[in-house]
C-alpha cells in the first residue's frame, strides 16, 4: 500500500505567502526515506489550521481501528498542522508520531479529561455550554462584549444593508400572501440567539418603517420572539429593543430543540433567523476512507507543559488537576478562591485543551444516528455521487436544531441562517473546517450539503448565498422554505 498524502488548500496560502511547502515537504521526504518504521501503511494529511486557537498540535497521530476495536498494526493517519510545524523539528516529530501509530498507547505525560468518544460527546462541548452559562463572568473578567470581538467588529446579522434587504424580502412575501388574503392575524417572527439585541432592534425598526411606507398594518400584527439559551443574554438584549416592548416576548430556548419550548407556534412562524449559532453546536466528524466509513473519535487532553503551567499558576497539585477541572464545570467559575481566579483558571484550561483522534469503523452507516429523526441514510445519499476519500462534519447539533425548527414554520415561512457553511463537499478537501476556539466557545463550519439533504427529506428547499454586505465576510446565508 502506498503512502497517501493529502495537502489541504495550499494554493491560497502559497499565494498569500503564508506557506512555503518546500520547507515542510523536504523534511517530510527525508522522514519517509529515513524512517525506521514501516511507513507504507500511512496516510499523511497536511492542513493549515486557520484558527488562532484550536485543538491541534503540530503533529497528531490518528490510529485506524478494526471493527472489534483493535489497532490495525501501525495503520493510521498523521495530521500535520502547517501553521504550527517547525521544519527543523519535523523529522523527530514525524518519527515520534509514526511510533505512536505503531505502538498505540496513552501518552502518560498528557492529562486526559475523558476516554475516546464521538466528537459530539466530548468534554469540549461541556466547556462550550459552560461558556454560555457563565458568559457574564467571562466578560466581567476579560472586559469585553462577545460580539465586539467578531470579525468586522460586530455580527453580520446586524449589518444595516442586510437587515434592510431581509425585511424588504419578507414584506414582499407578506404582500404575495396578502394578494390571496392569506396573511395571518398575528405575524410571528423568531430570532434565535439574540446576541446584544441589536439585530432584533434593527429588524423591527426596518419592519416598522417599511410596513408604514407600504401602507400596511404588518407592524401592528407583529409578534417578535427573542430566544436564547442564556437568560443573561436575553436580559441584556432586552435593553436594545425597549421601543418595541409591546411586540416582543423573551423566551429561553435550547437551540438544539426549539420545538419543545416553542411547540405552541407549530406551523405559525413566518420568519426565523439565526446568526452564528449552528457553528457552535455539538458535532462529530466522519471519514470515508477507501470506501469504508469511520467515526472520528476524540479524547481531550492537556499537554504536560500546559498542565504544569496551570498547576503552578493556580497553586494546584498536579494529581488533583483533573478533579479541579471537574469541579469547575460542575460548580461554576466562582468555586476557586474568587470568581476572577476561577475564570482565569477556566480560560487557561480551555486555551490548553487539545484533542487526540482515532478512526473507528462504522459497519452500518445507514443506521448511524445523527440527530433525532435523522440517520446515516442521509450521509449515504449525500455521498452517493461523490467518490473517493473524504472527512466531513456531521454537524449533529445543527441538523438537530434544523429538524426541530422547521416544524415551527408557517407553510409560507422561511428559516434564514447566517453562519459559516461549507456549501460543497469538495470544500472538505480544500481546507480545515474546524473545530476551532473562539473566545470561550467552539466553532465548526457547518456541513451545508448534509443540511440540504436532510431538508429535502423533510420537504424543504435549502439555498445558499454568500453574505455580500461585508467584504471578506466568511458568512453564508442559508434560506429554507417549504417545498411545493
Amino acid at each position, binding site marked *: 500500500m502506498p503512502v497517501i498524502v493529502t495537502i489541504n488548500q495550499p494554493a491560497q496560502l502559497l499565494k498569500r505567502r503564508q506557506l512555503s511547502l518546500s520547507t515542510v515537504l523536504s523534511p517530510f521526504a527525508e522522514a519517509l526515506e529515513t524512517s525506521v518504521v514501516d511507513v507504507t501503511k500511512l496516510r499523511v494529511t497536511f492542513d493549515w489550521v486557520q484558527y488562532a486557537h484550536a485543538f491541534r498540535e503540530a503533529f497528531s497521530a490518528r490510529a485506524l481501528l478494526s471493527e472489534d476495536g483493535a489497532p490495525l498494526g501501525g495503520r493510521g493517519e498523521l495530521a500535520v498542522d502547517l501553521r504550527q510545524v517547525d521544519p527543523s523539528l519535523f523529522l523527530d516529530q514525524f518519527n515520534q508520531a509514526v511510533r505512536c501509530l505503531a505502538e498505540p498507547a496513552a501518552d502518560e505525560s498528557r492529562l486526559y479529561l475523558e476516554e475516546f468518544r464521538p466528537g459530539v460527546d466530548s468534554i469540549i462541548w461541556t466547556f462550550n455550554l459552560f461558556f454560555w452559562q457563565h458568559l457574564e463572568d467571562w466578560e466581567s473578567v476579560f472586559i469585553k462584549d462577545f460580539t465586539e470581538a467578531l470579525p468586522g467588529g460586530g455580527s453580520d446579522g446586524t449589518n444595516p444593508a442586510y437587515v434592510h434587504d431581509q425585511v424588504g424580502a419578507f414584506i414582499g412575501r407578506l404582500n404575495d400572501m396578502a394578494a*390571496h*388574503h*392569506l396573511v*395571518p392575524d398575528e405575524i410571528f417572527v423568531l430570532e434565535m440567539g439574540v446576541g446584544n439585541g441589536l439585530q432584533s432592534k434593527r429588524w423591527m425598526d426596518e419592519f416598522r418603517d417599511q410596513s408604514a411606507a407600504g401602507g400596511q398594518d404588518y407592524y401592528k400584527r407583529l409578534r417578535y420572539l427573542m430566544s436564547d439559551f442564556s437568560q443573561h443574554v436575553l436580559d441584556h438584549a432586552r435593553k436594545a429593543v425597549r421601543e418595541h416592548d409591546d411586540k416582543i416576548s423573551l423566551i429561553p430556548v435550547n437551540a438544539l430543540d426549539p420545538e419543545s419550548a416553542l411547540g405552541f407556534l407549530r*406551523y*405559525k412562524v413566518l420568519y426565523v433567523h439565526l446568526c452564528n449559532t449552528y457553528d457552535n453546536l455539538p458535532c462529530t466528524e466522519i471519514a470515508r476512507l477507501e470506501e469504508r466509513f469511520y467515526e472520528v473519535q476524540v479524547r481531550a487532553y492537556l499537554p504536560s507543559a500546559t498542565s504544569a503551567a496551570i498547576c503552578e499558576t493556580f497553586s494546584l497539585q498536579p494529581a488533583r488537576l483533573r478533579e479541579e477541572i471537574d469541579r469547575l464545570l460542575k460548580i461554576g467559575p466562582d468555586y476557586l478562591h474568587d470568581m476572577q481566579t476561577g475564570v482565569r483558571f477556566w480560560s487557561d484550561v480551555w486555551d490548553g485543551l487539545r484533542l487526540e483522534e482515532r478512526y473507528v469503523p462504522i459497519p452500518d452507516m445507514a443506521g448511524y444516528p445523527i440527530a433525532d429523526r435523522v440517520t446515516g*441514510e442521509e450521509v449515504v445519499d449525500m455521498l452517493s455521487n461523490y467518490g473517493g476519500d473524504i472527512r466531513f462534519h456531521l454537524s449533529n447539533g445543527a441538523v438537530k436544531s434544523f429538524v426541530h425548527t422547521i*416544524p415551527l414554520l*408557517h*407553510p409560507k415561512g422561511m428559516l434564514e441562517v447566517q453562519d459559516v457553511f461549507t456549501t460543497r463537499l469538495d470544500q472538505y478537501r480544500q481546507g480545515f473546517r474546524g473545530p476551532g476556539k473562539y473566545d470561550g466557545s467552539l466553532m465548526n463550519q457547518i456541513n451545508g450539503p448534509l443540511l440540504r439533504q436532510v431538508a*429535502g427529506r*423533510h*420537504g*424543504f428547499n435549502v439555498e445558499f448565498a454568500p453574505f455580500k454586505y461585508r467584504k471578506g465576510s466568511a458568512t453564508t446565508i442559508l434560506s429554507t422554505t*417549504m*417545498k*411545493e
Partner: protein
Amino acid sequence: MAAPRLYRKLLPTTVVGSYSIPEWLERAKTDYFQRHISRDYLDQIHDTVIKAAIKDQELAGIDIVSDGELRRDNMIDHFTSRLPGVEIDQRAKPYFYDYYDSVVRHKLPAGPLHLEQEFQFVRDNTDRPIKFSVTGPFSLMRRIRDEHYGDAEGLATDLARIMNLELKALVRAGADYIQVDEPYFSGFPDDIGWGIRAINVLFDGVDAHKGLHICYGNRYGKPNFEGNYRYLFPAVLEAQVDQLTLEFARKGFDDLDLLKQYPFPFELGVGVIDVKSAEVETPELVASRIREVLNYLPPERVFVNPDCGLRHVPEEAAFKKLQAMAAGAELVRAELR
C-alpha cells in the same frame, strides 16, 4: 338535502389519501425514478404493499377501504403523467415524491387514464366497500405550467372534462364512492367560486356517491396553507356532491359553526385523526371529536375519517390510529343504539 345513504352502518369509518409509506418503499420508488429498477419490478412491489395496506385497514376495523394510494408517487404526478396532452420533458426524478415540471402547450385532448385498473385491483382484494379518490382539477391545474390557455379556470375546466370521462369509466368498473381531493383550494380562497364550478363539471353525470375533500395540504406531513374554512362558504354549497370531507382533528372544531350559519346540505366526512402527528389518539378522544360533530349534524350524515392521508405517519402509529378511529366510532355508535 342529504344524499341517499350509501352504507347502512351509522358513522361509517373510512380513509383519506395515502396510507403510511415506510422509508424502504420510498427508496424503492426513488430507485425506479432514478432508473435503478424496472417498472415491472416496482409494479410488483406496489401490488404487494397495497394488499398489505388493505389488510391493515380491514384488521383495524375500517368500513370503507382504499388502496392506500400507494401506487402514486404523489397526488399530482400520478394524474398529470397519465393525462393526454400534459407534457413532462424530464421523467426521471431525484426523489420520487418531487413534482414533475408538467406543462400544457396545446388544448388538452380527451383520453383515458386507466384508473379503473387500480380500482379493479382493490376490488379483487377485498369484500369491503371501496372509496376511490382522485385529485381535483383545481389542484392539478395549480401544478401544471400553462403555456396555452392563459386562463386558470379554462385549464381547470378542461382537466375536469377529461377527468369526468375517467370517473365515468370508474363507475362502469364498479366504483360507487368517488372522492375528489382539493387541498389547493385553501391556498387560493378567492378562486373558490370557479373552483367549485370545475368540481361540478368533473362530477357531471357521474353515478356514484360523490365526496369532496378539502384540507390544508399534507405535503411531507406539513400543511401547505393555514387559515380556516370560512372562505368555502357560501360557494361550496353549490357543489354537486354528496359529502364534504374536512380536517378538524389538528385544527379544532371552531369551523363547525359554519354549519349552523349556512344550510349545510351534505354529509360530513369528519377528520378525527391528526395526520401531522405520530401520537396515537385514544378511542375516547376520537369519540369526543365525533360527539362534537353530532351537535351540528345527525349521525346519519356523518362519516368518520382521518384529517387527510397517513402517508407521513410511521407505519405502526398509522395502524394504531386507524384502530383508535374505528374503536372511537364504535363507542359513539353504542351510545346511539
